[in-house]
């Protein structure tokens, strides 16, 4: 009775969507709920209302309820015991005692990232999976160097995640030196790893992905990566010990596709060692001490499509070299001292899909150079000097899906230039001079899913225009001008998942009554309003709510807790707390 095997090895996509979400919700208060909900295994079994559970699912749920009654599940096919294991981890019921049930089960995946209580005592059962174990996530655990010695028998291990493991040092690396099947290895934020310990990396010849983000002691150790000809991705973000000399050994890594060295000490000289990396597609130099001179080397990287030069202190000097980076699809120039003169050299980069000019000294005239960028789908102009005349040059960018115009000088009348951008999904208009009159110009943008009007001066009158934007999933209006009457219009936006109406101090419990029909909401913020405990009852219907923020209201943590325990099982983050 064998079972069909289904594996989900690559969790990279999930990481991406998480990042997008984190960015999207960065204004909505606490982020803990995202962190906790995404560290769990991606597959979960739960009963869906109205859908008949299979007998197998019922059995898994049964075992999950009383795992302590079982001695072992090793007689089951591997994929079933894997499902039981995943369910226990997801529901936080797995302990060092119940773990014993899984001894010798030939499990392939142990996703125990951020799981409470994981330490060396767990390692014996983990290692008993032997050559079956392919993927192990112990991030955030108390596992020590000694614990890692147990992994010697897991010779087929392909993926090992030891992020945020504070008790692992160079000695621990010795313990994994024989795991030559490893293709993915991750050691984020490890203070102890040094050049000496990294010598064991030279034996991990199949390594394709190595993550050493925030490891402050690795200077001099990259020399041990020299022979790793299969290495495709190397993350050295926030390793501020990394210098130009550390770049030299990387010049041998012909397979390298992605290199991140943001916030290191690397200068133009260090970049010169990279010019032979013909497969390098992504280079992240954010916050490095480079100048436009490094662009000379980058032009030799024929595969380069993503370049991050955020906060590099670049000026217009030498920026004519950008014109030669014709294959770029993603370019981040945010927080540099560049002006329209630099933009003129981007005119020929027509493959650009994403351009970040956040806080650059860009004016209206500069944007004329972007008018031909028909593939551009994401444009970041926040904190620039762009105004209404500049938007005129963007009105033909039919691929544009996301544009950020927060803290620009764009005003209501300028928004008319956006009304033809029918692909637009995300629009940030967080600027004081935007008012109701501006919203009147947006009603044709019915594809919008995200609209940020955080600091705009929107009143009840303006919300009437929003009614047409039926696809909105995220909306922020925090300028103080809304009353309950305006929320009455917002309640018709039935796709909403995230709603931020904080700082509108005239909103009352009536607002919550209007919102009660928006059953798709997962995040709600109505801080600084006149909402009281009595109004909370209207939220009972918001079964999907995961985050609720009601700071500076007449609401107590206790009352939210009561609501949570009886009606809102998915609520994981709330304020006041």
């Amino acid at each position, binding site marked *: 009775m064998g079972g069909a095997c289904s594996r989900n090895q690559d969790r990279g996509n999930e990481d991406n969507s998480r990042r997008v979400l984190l960015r999207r919700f960065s204004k909505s208060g606490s982020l803990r709920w995202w962190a906790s909900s995404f560290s769990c295994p991606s597959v979960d079994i739960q009963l869906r209302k109205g859908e*008949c559970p*299979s*007998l*197998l699912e*019922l059995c898994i749920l049964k075992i999950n309820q009383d795992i302590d009654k079982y001695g072992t599940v090793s*007689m*089951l*096919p591997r994929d*079933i015991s894997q499902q039981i294991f995943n369910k226990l981890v997801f529901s936080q019921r797995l302990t060092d005692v119940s773990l014993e049930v899984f001894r010798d089960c030939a499990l392939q995946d142990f996703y125990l990232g951020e799981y409470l209580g994981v330490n060396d005592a767990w390692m014996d059962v983990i290692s008993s999976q032997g050559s079956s174990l392919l993927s192990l996530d112990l991030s955030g655990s108390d596992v020590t160097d000694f614990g890692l010695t147990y992994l010697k028998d897991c010779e087929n291990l392909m993926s090992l995640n030891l992020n945020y493991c504070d008790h692992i040092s160079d000695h621990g690396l010795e313990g994994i030196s024989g795991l030559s099947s490893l293709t993915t290895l991750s050691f984020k934020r490890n203070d102890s790893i040094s050049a000496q310990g990294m010598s064991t990396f030279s034996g991990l010849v199949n390594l394709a992905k190595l993550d050493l983000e925030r490891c402050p002691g690795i200077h001099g150790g990259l020399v041990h990566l020299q022979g790793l000809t299969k290495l495709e991705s190397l993350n050295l973000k926030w390793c501020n010990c990394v210098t130009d000399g550390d770049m030299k050994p990387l010049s041998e890594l012909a397979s390298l596709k992605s290199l991140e060295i943001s916030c290191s000490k690397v200068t133009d000289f260090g970049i010169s060692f990279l010019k032979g990396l013909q497969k390098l597609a992504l280079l992240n130099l954010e916050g490095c001490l480079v100048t436009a001179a490094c662009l000379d080397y980058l032009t030799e990287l024929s595969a380069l499509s993503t370049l991050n030069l955020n906060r590099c202190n670049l000026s217009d000097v030498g920026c004519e070299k950008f014109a030669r980076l014709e294959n770029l699809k993603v370019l981040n120039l945010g927080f540099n001292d560049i002006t329209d003169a630099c933009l003129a050299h981007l005119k020929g980069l027509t493959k650009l899909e994403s351009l970040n000019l956040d806080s650059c000294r860009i004016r209206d005239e500069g944007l004329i150079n972007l008018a031909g960028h028909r593939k551009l789908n994401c444009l970041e102009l926040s904190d620039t000097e762009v105004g209404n005349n500049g938007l005129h040059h963007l009105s033909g960018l039919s691929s544009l899906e996301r544009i950020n115009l927060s803290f620009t000088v764009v005003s209501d009348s300028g928004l008319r230039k956006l009304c033809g951008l029918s692909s637009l999904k995300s629009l940030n208009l967080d600027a004081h001079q935007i008012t109701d009159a501006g919203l009147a110009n947006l009603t044709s943008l019915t594809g919008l899913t995200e609209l940020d009007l955080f600091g705009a001066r929107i009143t009840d009158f303006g919300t009437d225009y929003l009614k047409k934007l039926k696809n909105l999933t995220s909306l922020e209006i925090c300028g103080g001008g809304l009353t309950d009457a305006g929320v009455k219009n917002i309640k018709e936006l039935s796709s909403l998942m995230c709603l931020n109406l904080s700082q509108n101090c005239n909103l009352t419990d009536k607002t919550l009554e209007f919102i009660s029909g928006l059953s798709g909401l997962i995040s709600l913020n109505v801080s600084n309003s006149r909402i009281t405990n009595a109004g909370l009852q209207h939220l009972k219907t918001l079964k999907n709510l995961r985050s609720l923020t009601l700071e500076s209201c007449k609401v107590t943590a206790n009352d939210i807790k009561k609501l949570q325990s009886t009606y809102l099982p998915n609520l994981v983050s709330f304020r006041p707390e």
Partner: protein
Amino acid sequence: MKKEDTVKLISAEGFEFVIDKEAAMVSQTIHNMLTSPGSFAESQHGEVTFPEISTTILEKICQYFYWHLQFASGKETEFPIEPELTLELMMAANYLHT
């Protein structure tokens, strides 16, 4: 009950369960056996033998089939599973795609 509307499921010990064909079809495996023309002897005789499934487990499986039909018609009750049967039941459920 007409004979063609029922099937006979036979346990490892030779115990026979005669149940509605509709109920047995809840199992994807049995469904395939009974509907793929000619390829299984089972589809002609309406009889399936399970040499690896004990009588106790096969009885529980049959109960599940009927519970499933009830559930599908809107009667959502709880299906009881005794802890001592769970593991064996899972192996059978896995085999039967149930």
